[in-house]
């Protein structure tokens, strides 16, 4: 018995693959409008019978149902196919193809216009629209007035020494790598006590500190040195020791002033 089990599993997997292929073929046949009689409905039903006998999970039964539905679509398509072929409108596509190739472009255009009744529509300005446009024009401030919101003084160039820029918080006075390592060590220290640390707890501080820490954390999370998860039950973000997802995602976390 032990020897026969893997073979049986293999057979079931093969039949399952066949059923999946059948569903795909049926869908493609209906979508592309190709000859539905190319699908062997009787043979496919026999395959489905084998499959349902070996079905072991709810998923298999669902797949069987989907395959049956696809086959019913094929039968419906066969019905339409016969009706279309027996209708007055039916012309063999190969014949049409040969005709299109044989006839000149000018003649094709002539044939089209002789059975073409184009749409009549007015695509022009109306008086109310013209009224609106005049009103808009009259209220519109000159370009100079709209773009001159900034005083000339604000465009003057200023120069800072590195010390002054550091005091203003425009540049980091320590090396960026050092700052990253410091905050990483701090978070890892917190994570040694518990599995996850609340994001707002880590970035907390004055406004400048909060923004700086959030900036550094985003680097650590993006590089995979730390992880960030969202817990919908608490509606909060938590920092973890590693990223749980292989797919990178971009998220925005708002930080209010004074938080």
């Amino acid at each position, binding site marked *: 018995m032990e020897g026969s089990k893997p073979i049986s599993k293999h057979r079931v997997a093969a039949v399952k693959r066949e059923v999946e292929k059948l569903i795909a073929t049926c869908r493609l046949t209906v*979508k592309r409008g190709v000859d539905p009689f190319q699908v062997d409905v009787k043979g496919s039903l026999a395959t489905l019978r084998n499959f349902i006998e070996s079905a072991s999970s709810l998923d298999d039964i669902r797949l069987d149902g989907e395959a049956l539905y696809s086959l019913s679509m094929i039968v419906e398509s066969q019905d339409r196919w016969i009706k279309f072929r027996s209708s007055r409108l039916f012309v063999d596509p190969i*014949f049409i193809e040969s005709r299109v190739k044989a*006839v000149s472009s000018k003649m*094709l*255009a002539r044939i089209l216009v002789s059975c*073409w009744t184009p749409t009549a*529509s007015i695509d022009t300005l109306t008086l109310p629209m013209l009224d609106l446009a005049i009103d808009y024009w009259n209220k519109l401030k000159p370009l100079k007035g709209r773009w001159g919101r900034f005083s000339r003084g604000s465009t003057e160039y200023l120069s800072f020494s590195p010390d002054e820029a550091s005091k203003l918080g425009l540049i980091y006075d320590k090396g960026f790598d050092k700052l990253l390592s410091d905050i990483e060590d701090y978070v890892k220290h917190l994570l040694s006590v518990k599995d996850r640390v609340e994001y707002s707890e880590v970035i907390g501080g004055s406004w400048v500190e909060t923004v700086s820490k959030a900036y550094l954390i985003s680097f650590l999370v993006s590089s995979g040195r730390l992880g960030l998860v969202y817990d919908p039950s608490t509606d909060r973000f938590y920092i973890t020791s590693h990223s749980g997802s292989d797919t990178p995602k971009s998220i925005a976390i708002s930080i209010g002033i004074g938080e």
Partner: protein
Amino acid sequence: MGSRKDLEERARRALQLLLVQRHRKPGVKGWELRRSIGKNYLNILEYLNEKLDSYGLCIRMVYESEETTPDQARFLVTVKDSIKITEAISAGWRIDELAILAASIAYIASRQGSISSRELLRLLEVKFPSWFIEATLRRLIRYGYLERDGDIVKIGWRSKAEIDGGKLLELLVKMDVGSEG
């Protein structure tokens, strides 16, 4: 519905809605007509259609996809009789573009309304360069004459409204290729 004057007024409003293009697509949806001229808009359109007939125009109802009620359908005004090729050219169409449209519709119609874009390109490439075919097909799809659903190309809602597919096939089949010119 009320007086004749009221009927005339509603018909006039309906004609404005039908003719003035407000979106990219021409015409107006049934529900928009219902909202503007009332629930018996179909009767008013019938009355308007009779009036338009004397000017060589008619109102057409076309279903853009799977809709089944007039409320969901699109209504448009089309010319009643076919036009001349010179009129089509003066309306901004090129002979080659019209030929591509004719070939596409005839071929798609003979294949029950949908084919893969590869097959269509294979047919059209016999006569036109592929860059021109692609640009023209994009234009025809944008105007609603053809429809693209992934790899599949179908006859668009506008072709259903404006082009008599049966007549197109018939003319193509009956045409005497030898006598062309």
